[in-house]
């Protein structure tokens, strides 16, 4: 739990830095969408994403391997499409609504966060019973 809390604190610090200097909310789905679609200056968003990937590269070097377990391709790809679609329709993901929105005490973000946790839980419950071969292991 110490690692969870301290990792979370780093995320909160990063979101504060990005807001204070760059004036942007550190919602990753929104940053990604802006980096893909924005026609004007998108350097802030692209660099934020580069930083995220760099953290992954460093982690791989430090621990000498990717770490994560294997997953079936179908739920992975289907899940990716739904995550992309849903976060843009709903205007945020775990970071945008779940961290930045809740830290601003926004009711809209609380409703979104409770909704995606509920539907995520229902999905995990259903997959374990209907399609256990799709379970993340």
């Amino acid at each position, binding site marked *: 739990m110490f690692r969870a*809390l301290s990792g979370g604190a780093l995320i909160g610090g990063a979101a504060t830095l990005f807001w204070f200097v760059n004036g942007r909310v550190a919602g990753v789905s929104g940053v990604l969408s802006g980096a893909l679609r924005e026609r004007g200056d998108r350097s802030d968003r692209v660099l934020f*994403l580069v930083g995220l990937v760099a*953290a992954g590269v460093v982690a791989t070097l430090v621990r000498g391997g990717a770490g994560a377990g294997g997953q079936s391709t179908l739920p992975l790809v289907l899940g*990716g*499409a739904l*995550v992309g679609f849903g976060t843009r329709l709903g205007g945020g993901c*775990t970071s945008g609504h779940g961290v930045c929105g809740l830290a601003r005490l926004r009711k809209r973000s609380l409703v979104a966060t409770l909704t*995606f946790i509920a539907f995520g839980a229902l999905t995990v*419950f259903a997959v374990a019973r209907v399609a256990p071969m799709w*379970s993340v292991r």
Partner: protein
Amino acid sequence: MRRALAALGAGALFGVGLVVSGMTDPRNVVGFLDFTGKWNPTLAGVMVGAIGVHFAALRWLGSRGYPVLSADARPWIDGRLLAGAAIFGVGWGLAGYCPGPAVVALGFGTSSAWAFMLAMVVGVLAGERAARDRDAAVTASTPARAV
């Protein structure tokens, strides 16, 4: 230059936080969502740490006169918000990745991370289009109000 360094640093710090806390491992995410099974509270701890620090920092900035609230063109709770969050939740439960950890996982160089990312980019573009179409339809069906 200051802005560029801050953006890069914020991304890197955010990514390290996700790795350190175990959020880039889909098993921790699915474990958190598995309320009827062997529940894994890690994600809740990450949320508490992140929200606590960000909330306190925004409060402090606000007390010193800096802007705290983000501009939001759509501050209301509507069907778009609920449907989007529900669809995102289903995808999150299926794959165990949300956008932040998915971008960090690209740096792991695994084929599963890239497969998820490609599908997510397609979903993001389709989702923005659907959101725009829906807003246009709602605007068209709402009678003009005198201001």
